[in-house]
């Protein structure tokens, strides 16, 4: 089976060749002096071509017009500019909220779960993934605020003492959502910042001018004393373990926005884990896309990001795609078997209705394509193929949310009120705007933040060595923590 395939070829004539192969393959076995790695990372931040600024300017223009311009226009004029109607009260804004929250899940997953399980391949790209979490959550926030009818009163949803003496309604899944997303946004930002402190100190020590002042402020006087490292290590451990249930709760609660409602197709007990796995499906695919992009566009990243990482991410995507298929089938099976006439009508509408092609596209891009491509080691190590599979998986997950939100809303228990919401409204430029905003934030961050956690890479390299069992050289990892 592809998942358990050993990454190392077993038959080799010359063991010395094999050792060289291992060192070339694994970043952890190919150590460079720390000073050199620091220089590589600093250079990757400061080497910027004119193309970067052109792309950044285009993105900034899209954000200004497509996102904030369009949003402002919508606030001033009303939600009739969207494609929503009755019964499609929710549509693309909620699709995109769930989409961005899904993408945000991978950062924590890659960084915290793989840290807990000590999966060593995570080390060079944990920060790249964590940045995605924070930036994607910002986009989700924009989408959910855009969704509100009277966004200028959004603070009424904050559980704070107020003049009206009225507190918020904790019966409402939206209130749980507010608490969960808020917790997740704050804790993932803190989780991004803590392991960044030593790298900011590193950047502070080898920069001048405005960068020096910036890093000096951000590094907060970090020196690297034993005590500082101890506090940091303990805090990171607590964060890694505690942020995982928070991450699961966030997408489960997002699913409860639907599952708690009294609607055919939504009221499903399996929605919680189904949504969590769906989030990982889009999120891990997005991590693969980001990792490939920084590997091929940023200077010196070819040292840190190697085919082994594509390989590992590809396997992860394959496993998650299989889990997603399992949950999808589980949800479908039980709804189909239940025989409720409205649910039956809805399932039929999903497959044979006007959006049927989206439903089939979802199955193809979420299941068929990953399964056909990712089982093959050479294909998943191919950046173009992995990127394409990742992109298609994200298209497929967008389609899944589209099927769940607007398409399912078209069928309800009052056949007189069935209706369609296919008019593309202002949500389209606003979605393109959030994509551009995400890319823009990421591009700017890649100039300001060391994208590779150098100290974590060095720690990993200290822990790895090649041992020989008989004639076979094998990778061995010491548990330093």
């Amino acid at each position: 089976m592809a998942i358990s395939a050993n990454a190392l070829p077993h038959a080799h004539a010359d063991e010395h060749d094999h050792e060289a192969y291992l060192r070339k393959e694994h970043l952890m076995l190919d150590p460079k002096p720390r000073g050199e790695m620091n220089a590589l990372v600093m250079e990757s931040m400061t080497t910027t071509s004119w193309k970067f600024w052109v792309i950044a300017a285009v993105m900034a223009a899209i954000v200004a017009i497509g996102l904030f311009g369009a949003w402002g226009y919508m606030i001033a004029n009303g939600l009739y500019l969207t494609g929503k109607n009755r019964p499609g009260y929710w549509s693309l804004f909620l699709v995109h909220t769930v989409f961005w929250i899904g993408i945000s899940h991978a950062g924590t997953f890659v960084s915290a779960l793989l840290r807990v399980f000590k999966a060593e391949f995570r080390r060079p790209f944990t920060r790249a993934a964590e940045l995605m979490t924070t930036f994607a959550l910002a986009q989700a926030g924009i989408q959910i605020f855009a969704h509100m009818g009277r966004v200028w009163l959004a603070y009424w949803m904050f559980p704070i003492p107020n003049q009206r003496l009225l507190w918020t309604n904790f019966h409402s899944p939206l209130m749980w959502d507010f608490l969960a997303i808020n917790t997740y946004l704050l804790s993932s930002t803190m989780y991004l910042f803590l392991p960044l402190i030593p790298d900011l100190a590193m950047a502070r020590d080898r920069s001048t001018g405005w960068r020096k002042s910036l890093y000096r402020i951000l590094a907060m006087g970090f020196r690297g004393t034993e005590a500082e490292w101890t506090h940091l290590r303990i805090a990171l451990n607590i964060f890694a373990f505690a942020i995982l249930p928070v991450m699961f709760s966030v997408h489960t609660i997002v699913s409860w926005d639907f599952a708690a409602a009294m609607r055919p197709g939504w009221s499903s007990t399996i929605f919680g884990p189904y949504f969590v796995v769906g989030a990982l499906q889009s999120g891990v695919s997005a991590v693969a896309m980001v990792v490939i992009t920084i590997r091929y566009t940023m200077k010196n990243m070819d040292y840190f990001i190697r085919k082994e990482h594509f390989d590992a991410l590809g396997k992860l995507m394959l496993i998650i795609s299989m889990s997603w298929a399992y949950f999808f089938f589980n949800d479908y099976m039980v709804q189909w078997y239940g025989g409720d006439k409205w649910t039956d009508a809805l399932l039929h509408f999903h497959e044979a209705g006007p959006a049927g092609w989206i439903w089939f596209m979802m199955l193809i891009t979420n299941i068929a394509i990953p399964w056909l491509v990712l089982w093959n080691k050479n294909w998943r190590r191919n950046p173009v193929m992995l990127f394409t599979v990742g992109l298609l998986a994200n298209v497929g997950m967008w389609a899944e949310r589209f099927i769940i939100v607007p398409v399912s809303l078209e069928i309800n228990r009052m056949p007189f009120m069935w209706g369609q919401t296919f008019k593309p409204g202002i949500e389209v430029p606003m979605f393109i705007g959030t994509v551009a905003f995400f890319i823009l934030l990421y591009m700017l961050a890649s100039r300001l933040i060391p994208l590779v956690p150098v100290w974590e890479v060095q720690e990993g390299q200290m822990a790895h060595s090649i041992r020989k069992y008989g004639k076979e050289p094998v990778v061995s990892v010491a548990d330093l923590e």
Partner: protein
Amino acid sequence: MTDKNLLLAIFEDIDPAAHAVDALRGLGIHDEQVTVISGTPITEAMLGRKHQWSNVTRFSLGGAIIGFASGCFLAFATPNMYPIIVGGQPLVPVPPSIVVLFEMTMLVMLISTFLGVFLDSRYPSYTPKEYVPEISDGRIALLLDCPGDMEATITKAMTEAGAESVKRAEAQVI
């Protein structure tokens, strides 16, 4: 010459640093007088030193308790301040309250863990400190609080243990 000096001995690797820690003990320097500064996390055990005391777990436990309490306030107290009946549900519904308790507990727990690191490590502090930029290149530095009359002995011992350089430490803006 003052009777107390700060010396900064810089080592390239763990082994010489561990030897130096032993040598210092032999010379009668207490562990508390030595501060280890490094660019990668090296555990105290690697240098044969005592485990560092950290309050982070306590902060985090305290935060969890405060978070749970504030969750209780939101879930159980606020509905009674302005009782509103919705959807035939009890005024204080049990299952949704569990969600509120969980999220508030986690939120305040993680915030206080984060603040715990700040408080324990005294961040942010921009006062001048004894530091050299080579440390973030992976060097290990021992910052010694040594009696003035032992300076020469210690410098010699450090060099013998394999120190790259031993010099008077000067606080500088970092």
